[in-house]
């Protein structure tokens, strides 16, 4: 399958999951709001624990519904969104490197089979892992997975630098990137610091920071909806640009002589 089709397929998958997550959030909130209203009106609706025979009091349900909607539901949806961003960016890098493995080392000159200058890209992979791989493509696959895995632990600005230096997509723009950095920083803060803003968040979020140190992360609905839209827009734009960049054009040859299997002009 051509790389452009793979990229479109990945983008479609991510966009479907974005839409699904959005619908799940909205429908879950609506369901809880309904429960909240029933409880507020004192309607005889209760949840009975069969083991303890205990009824959950209606008044209790009203405040619980508020917490479930604005804290648990919003935050878990937001975390999912952050994972989708990661799946998209790192998935795109994986697809690209699989098609163009020589792009793992930007200092490698395919024409000569030598490296350019003194700089040398390094990918550390355990020898034991390499030894049981049978052929070159399996070894390359292992290297690509290693590169992607290492990037997973990097900040989004590093992801984009990696992409910029290889694909030159021209997107997303600076404003969108800043918002994505903030989004990931807020997610990390929820995940690793109980939502309390610290210096780590401020460093990662940079100019798009929404809080001061010591504040609590608040995933309000307008912000959440903004994140949905942002992720959708960025994915669509990058997929389109990457599809064009991966199209038929003369490419470098792998290891000086062997064809890299990349698309060739018609």
């Amino acid at each position, binding site marked *: 399958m051509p790389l452009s089709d793979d990229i479109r397929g990945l983008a479609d998958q991510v966009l479907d999951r974005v839409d699904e997550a959005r619908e799940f959030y909205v429908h879950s909130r609506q369901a809880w709001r*309904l429960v909240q209203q029933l409880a507020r009106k004192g309607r005889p609706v209760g949840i009975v624990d069969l083991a303890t025979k205990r009824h959950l009091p209606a008044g209790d349900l009203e405040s619980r519904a508020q917490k479930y909607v*604005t804290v648990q539901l919003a935050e878990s949806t937001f975390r999912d969104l952050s994972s989708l961003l990661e799946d998209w960016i790192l998935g795109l890098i994986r697809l690209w490197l699989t098609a163009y493995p020589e792009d793992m080392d930007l200092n490698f000159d395919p024409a000569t089979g030598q490296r350019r200058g003194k700089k040398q890209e390094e990918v550390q992979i355990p020898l034991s892992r390499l030894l049981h791989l049978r052929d070159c493509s399996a070894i390359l696959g292992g290297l690509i997975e290693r590169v992607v895995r290492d990037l997973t632990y990097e900040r989004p600005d590093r992801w984009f630098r990696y992409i910029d230096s290889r694909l030159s997509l021209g997107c997303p723009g600076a404003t969108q990137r800043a918002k994505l950095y903030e989004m990931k920083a807020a997610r990390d803060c929820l995940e690793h610091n109980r939502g309390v803003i610290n210096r780590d968040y401020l460093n990662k979020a940079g100019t798009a920071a929404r809080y001061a140190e010591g504040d609590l992360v608040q995933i309000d609905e307008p912000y959440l909806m903004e994140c949905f839209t942002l992720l959708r827009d960025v994915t669509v734009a990058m997929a389109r640009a990457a599809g064009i960049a991966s199209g038929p054009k003369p490419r470098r040859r792998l290891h000086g002589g062997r064809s890299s299997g990349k698309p060739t002009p018609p």
Partner: protein
Amino acid sequence: MRRYPEPSGPKERALADESPKKEILRFLESGFAGVPEEANKVLSYNMGIQSSHGLLTWQEQSGTLMIESGLHSVARRLTMIDEMTKDGLRVSTDGIAGPYLMVPVAQLDAVLAVLDRHKVRYWVDADAISLDNEPAITVINFGRSGQAARIQAILDEAG
């Protein structure tokens, strides 16, 4: 430019196509023509206008703006009272989620205007739920940093 309807009855006075505040001020100056004498209270919560001559409120609904007078029930529509329960609007709170306010959609704009005037931060659910064909209710969320007592005091004062 808004269009305002012609007077439809003795208890309504149509406004010309000018700013609401200007129109209400002119109406006040005119001596409250048509306002029943038994109405002894003026409620003009949105504009902050008060008078002892009669009951006066204004509201904006479905693109029409008109002065309604004389009926206490009409006045109540514009005060910070829950239309459904007829009680004062009650700010609920949850220790973790922060305060929130459940409010009929018909009252939303009026409540938000008060909150905006006091620079209270909030967000509103994107939709409202109607139960048993009753007026749809939405939720104004004040978040974790919301101050329930302050917000309640603001609403009480407005009512």
